[in-house]
């Protein structure tokens, strides 16, 4: 009897599990990591109105997540210099796999599913050789590590894909070592060379964009892809804090980089720091957030500054409808465009640096 029941269970599992889709996780539109009042960390799924659909506990502070394009699976990364990531089944809230960075590597907090979700790629720091790599993990093999390739720069951070499968990597340019200063101390500020690296679907370097020499301390960290594969990148300035430098870059393959700025007073108020970047849901504009400056700056795709929205500690940003969804460290989730309107406020929930829009729902 019990054998028969186990057999049925196994049969059900075999047939049902592969069919799970994001609908089984409540069809979340966004994922975000947060710390609660008990000091516990979790990954949350949010619907289109920013209401919480599920909560999946995480073993440590997260940074960003990678969502599978079709299966209700998200990979949550420990913040740098974390050496593990966990695969969360968002339908059950359970951790199904744990990814450990190989010896001499650590994760940077971001990752991306490629090849229709067959592979996961993870920007990593190879600190022995002082270079950036992408770890490649095979989902069908239970997230086994199957290889790694160069990112052609130090300190790779965010990674995105263009519509043709070309990968874009933000090489932040900053070298850290896990055994020095808790792994977050910046060790090469004077020699930084951040870059934007375009890799083919087979990981060959196709184009590398570097900034002018006077901006070599402007760390390219986060990415967003707009209509027609326009790449927008957010930067964090490691140089003299009184220098006014651009914090957003706009680029298309084969063209010059554009580095727009707000007017001087607004630019100064960003405090040399952009934490997240996203295109508006309708692709009509792009924005960066500065939690330190307590504001979001909006730009047109041609670089025209469109205005600032003020909100303390704002950081997470994702495309939503014709505007954005933003999150802050005070528990608020806000609809943003010219102004802001709160959608959800959970006191005591500190949203972490990033919100992730589910790829299936982004145009």
């Amino acid at each position, binding site marked *: 009897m019990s054998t028969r029941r186990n057999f049925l269970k196994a049969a059900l599992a075999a047939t049902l599990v592969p069919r799970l889709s994001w609908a089984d996780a409540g069809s979340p539109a966004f994922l975000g990591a947060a710390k609660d009042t008990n000091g516990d960390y979790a990954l949350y799924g949010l619907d289109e109105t920013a209401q919480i659909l599920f909560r999946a506990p995480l073993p440590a502070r997260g940074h960003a997540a990678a969502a599978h394009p079709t299966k209700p699976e998200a990979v949550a990364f420990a913040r740098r210099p974390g050496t593990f990531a966990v695969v969360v089944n968002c339908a059950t809230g359970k951790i199904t796999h744990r990814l450990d960075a190989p010896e001499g590597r650590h994760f940077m907090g971001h990752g991306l599913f490629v090849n229709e979700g067959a592979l996961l790629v993870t920007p990593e720091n190879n600190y022995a050789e002082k270079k950036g790599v992408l770890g490649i993990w095979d989902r069908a093999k239970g997230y086994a590590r199957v290889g790694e390739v160069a990112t052609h720069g130090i300190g790779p951070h965010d990674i995105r894909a263009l519509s043709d499968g070309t990968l874009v990597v933000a090489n932040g340019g900053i070298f850290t070592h896990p055994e020095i200063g808790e792994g977050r101390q910046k060790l090469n500020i004077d020699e930084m060379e951040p870059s934007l690296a375009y890799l083919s679907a087979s990981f060959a370097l196709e184009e590398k964009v570097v900034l002018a020499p006077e901006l070599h301390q402007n760390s390219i960290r986060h990415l967003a892809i707009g209509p027609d594969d326009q790449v927008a990148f957010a930067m964090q300035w490691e140089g003299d804090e009184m220098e006014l430098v651009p914090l957003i870059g706009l680029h298309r393959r084969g063209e010059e980089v554009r580095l727009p700025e707000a007017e001087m007073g607004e630019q100064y108020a960003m405090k040399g720091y952009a934490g997240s970047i996203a295109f508006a849901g309708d692709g009509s504009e792009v924005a960066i957030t500065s939690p330190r400056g307590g504001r979001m700056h909006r730009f047109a795709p041609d670089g025209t500054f469109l205005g600032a929205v003020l909100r*303390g500690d704002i950081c997470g940003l994702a495309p939503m409808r014709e505007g954005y969804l933003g999150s802050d460290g*005070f528990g608020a989730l806000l609809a943003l465009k010219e102004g802001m309107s709160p959608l959800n*406020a959970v006191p005591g929930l500190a949203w972490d640096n990033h919100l992730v829009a589910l790829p299936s729902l982004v145009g």
Partner: protein
Amino acid sequence: MRYFTALCFSLALSVPLVPAMATPLDEALSRAVNQHTIPAVDRFDVATAFLADVTEANCLPGNVKPAYDVAFDAWMGLQHLHMGPIEKNGRILAIAFWPDKKGMIPRTLSGYIADQDPVVETPEAFADASIAVRGLFALEYMLFDDQFDGYAEDSYSCHLVQAITHDLHRMAAEIKEEWIAPDGFAQTLLMAGEAPQPLYLTKEESVQALYTMLLSSLENTKDQRIGRPIGTFDKPRPERAEARRSGRSERNVILQLEAARDLARNLAPGEMPLSEEAFAKTIALTEALNDPSFAGAGDPMGRLKIEIIGQNITTLMGNLANEIGAPLGVAAGFNSSDGD
């Protein structure tokens, strides 16, 4: 019509300006906004009006300097509130462009004066002039620096000085209006989510914002007003002291500490004996320097004395966290203090 007016009035009154059941946090918010922020924006408006009037009558440095000090004193009572109307339209930098690490102010002033730039002719044009020729620090060069202060009545420089003081008062008046208006920033803080122009969703957030201003202003004094002139032991940089030309470096530290103390007293839900002690000690140490422009940073003993003030500010910030932040349940932002 009279009936209509009366109805409007009673409706306006029915909107609670102070909460019905005031918690310690509500009370702290009400005190900080009404007794700290509103007097501060008002004083800056009055002081800059005085400065503009004095300068209008006689633009020469000897005449303007006392009013300059009055206006700068008032700014030191307000500059820590990096919020709402004060940080709108880049006003903070337009009022106080410091530190000017690249020497933009003297270079830009020289250019304007050499070109007799017509931007001084109308307030509207001057409001769009480079921030390097506007505000208290451009004015300091004009009034106190040998390169600029020898101008005559009715000269281009005289008109420039008048334009700067007028522009300062224009910004101060705008800040005051935007702060105290019925739908202004004071209400944004007091009414939080219910405000006509909401920015903070809850009163906790409003208090959090004010508390952040308190701590970040002290940190800024330590890192900039103290940190810049002391430089490193091997390379002190007294020439980097804030407002050293007008001999206000020490005074600005004292006034900033006093402004922070006033905000702290209004925010504190109870007594704050350790913070009071630390404020008193830090202010006394600063007064005892007797070194208006921090020139003493150039020698090891003088430098040490200034450095010790910075260390006392660190202690003070810890006390404030225990006596204000903890009992009110507020702390610095999660993302702003620790990014990636």
